[in-house]
């Protein structure tokens, strides 16, 4: 356990309420720590592959690299049951409305890993007319992994990094437990003559005005 295990307070040691054989088995921790400890080791990623990087994601989940060691083995095909979205591949304009929708459907707390250079920035296909230059143009990203494709070890590393991030969160300050601060998700773009990001609709209207 990632919490402190040694400093059992003396007054507890001889407390009559604690059975004798449990004396050395009591852990004292903070709520934040135990909460984050549980959370970070039971992330359920969304079963969702986009392109070549997804193959490496599958390899990461397979025997040799064995994602389960980190408690992340349960890939869920439904966004309602997932905590984490691994954007594993090229994000195209045709696909981005669906990705944003999936993201919105995931319950909070939700995390996003941008796997590979495509998801990070558009990668080798950046100049393409149907390619979005990075998923972070539409949804917030927690960890970026470089590589084309990133090796399974790199994906594992991103999990460790994400765990570190989760460890730093406090139940008192995180938004999803704060009243009045609901997250309504991101605006879903639509496919017009090109991809239309509705957050920029006013600007688009101005610039295209005849």
């Amino acid at each position, binding site marked *: 356990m990632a919490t402190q295990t040694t400093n059992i307070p003396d007054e507890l040691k001889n407390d009559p309420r604690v059975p004798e054989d449990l004396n050395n088995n009591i852990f004292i921790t903070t709520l934040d720590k135990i909460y984050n400890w549980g959370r970070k080791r039971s992330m359920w990623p969304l*079963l*969702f*592959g*986009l*392109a*070549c990087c*997804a*193959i*490496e994601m*599958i*390899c990461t989940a*397979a*025997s*040799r690299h064995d994602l389960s060691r980190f408690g992340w083995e349960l890939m869920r*095909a439904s966004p309602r049951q997932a905590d984490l979205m691994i954007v594993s*591949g*090229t994000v*195209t304009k*045709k*696909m981005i409305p*669906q990705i944003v929708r*999936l993201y919105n459907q995931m319950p909070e707390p939700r995390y996003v890993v941008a796997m590979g250079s495509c998801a990070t920035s*558009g990668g*080798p*296909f*950046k*100049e*393409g*007319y*149907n*390619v*979005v*230059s990075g998923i972070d*143009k539409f949804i917030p990203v927690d960890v970026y992994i470089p590589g*084309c*494709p990133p*090796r399974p070890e790199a994906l594992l590393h991103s999990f460790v990094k994400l765990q570190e991030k989760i460890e730093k969160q406090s139940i008192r300050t995180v938004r999803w437990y704060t009243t009045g601060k609901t997250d309504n998700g991101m605006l879903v773009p*639509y*496919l*017009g*003559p*090109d*991809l*239309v*990001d*509705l957050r920029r*609709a006013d600007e*688009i*209207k101005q*610039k*295209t*005005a*005849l």
Partner: protein
Amino acid sequence: MSEVTATPAKPAAKPAAPAAHGAAKPVAAAKMTPEMSAIAAKFGGAVEAAQYEGLLVTDHSKFIEIATYVRDVLKYNQLTNNTATDYIKDGVIEVVNQFTRVPQGGAPLTLKLRVPRPSGNDKTQPVPSLCPLYPGAEFQERETYDMYGVVFEGHPDLRRILMWEGFNGWPLRKDWKEAYYEGDTKPFESRWPGGDHKLAEERVPWEDNVNYPPGFDPFAFKPHPDGDIYDSMLAPSDGTVSIDNGHGVAPTLIEGLNASEMAELKTDEIIVNMGPQHPSTHGVLRMVVKLDGEKVTDLKLALGYLHRNHEKIGERNTWLHNIPYTDRLDYITGIYNEWGYVLGVERMMGLKTTDRVEYLRVITGELTRLASHFWAIGFLLNDLGAFFTPALYFITERDLIIDLLEAVTGSRMMCNYMRFGGVSRDFTSAQWAMARELAFERLPRTIDELDHFLTENEILKARSIGTGYMSADRCIAHSLTGPCLRAAGIGYDVRRADPYGYYDRFDFNIPVLYNGDVYDRYLVRVQEMRESLKIIQQALNQAETQSKVGDIQGGKKAYNHRVPAGQCYARVETPKGELGYYLVSDGNQNPYKYHIRSCSYINLNSMKEMAVGQKVADSVVILGSLDIVLGEVDR
């Protein structure tokens, strides 16, 4: 795209000044083959020898007649490739159709049609569609329409396929420019010494990869309804299946009920959407199925969710640039995709390779075939319900192959191994030993094990025998290639039908089975793995005595290639089927036209016919047996 308000910053003059692209130069007319002469003799005035290769049909009204003659008399029974080339300087768009005799093979026959280039974003004049003669033309013509705006008259369902309905412009036309447009050809000014590099986002007015036509109002615009695809399927049917594919056309009767009582019991038809995010669609494929109870009565595929504009980027790239991009087509078998491409360029340039190169290509290529079949079988079982356990075993084996490829090429999947006339690295002696160990010890055992556990497995047999049946004739008509075609009794394999590399030096068989169902497709794959092993073993043995270590580049090594003007269709037999590259060069350092005949994409054409009449759970299995990779489907 002339109507776009905001075009990106005007590119400065090119660093090197190659001759203008697409210039109307005097071009040698195609050499006449006996078949071409036969057509010319029969249809005198309607055809003439085309530029570079094939026949140009000048009288479009005769085209269907000529195509019928090609199919029925000359026996070119498969439409291999359909695409178009935009000759902007000549003011024409040329539609290219290539036909192959299956299973005999040989060089393809090319028929071309020319239509004047329309101005702006208009569509072209209609050209006759080949769909009534070759059902395999359906998806390919839709793609040509999507990319060039060529209208095919008589096409049953001419919609955009890779892009979405309502997209502004026809992307592969030479005068259509993407938002991040920098120059017609690479290397770009900004990446040239002395040029200052700017982020793509800084160069464009929208600070993003988008472009809107003038007067576009995002609030008033009504997106093309996605529901279209549903509406088109909504017309109620009587529960019977209109396609006769042998799966029982009449609605099943329950014992003791007559037909009218059955009609009362009739279940409602519902339309179910699967994908693009679905665990069984092998990537971002979307299919919409209409169900009567559990039975599929109609099925439509929606593609393009991974359309990465490979061909547009490919035409901007230099010839060498494109090799790593081909890795990302069918990302399970990167090396084999490269092979097809370098083969085409080598043929156009007349480059020679060395013995060592050819052996290394066969060894690495066949290793990826093994890896791909492991993957395909693992995930076919996934689709059959054996969730992930068989796949885990096969991924382990695949990892061993990938280890070797990584040691040799430096990358697990995106090997970037082939070069024009050569390969990038030779095996070291340790890697050679690794390959021997794999080919002689480990993999034969694994394949035996696979065979032992799966082939006679009762569930596998119950689910897959008779599922997804398609007859040999229909397979050919649908332009199906690869293991699926060979499972239907047609021994068509490009390694034998249009030979390349050193395959003539090895003793191996082309496995052919006759039932045309999912089970036979599985069996063909297993047998092909054994044949691949045989090839690798022979290649390893022969290479030791018949090639020089380190002799990995035929001709001079070069970074910048000028390919002589011409055109080429090069094809290889990847694990998925026939992968072809249709290349046109105008003598410059970039391809003028770069088209990929993608077997995964074209194989999907027959999906509907295989699945209609089957249970919905089987449609997933059928998809698994086709073994598609979305990177190659959508490119």
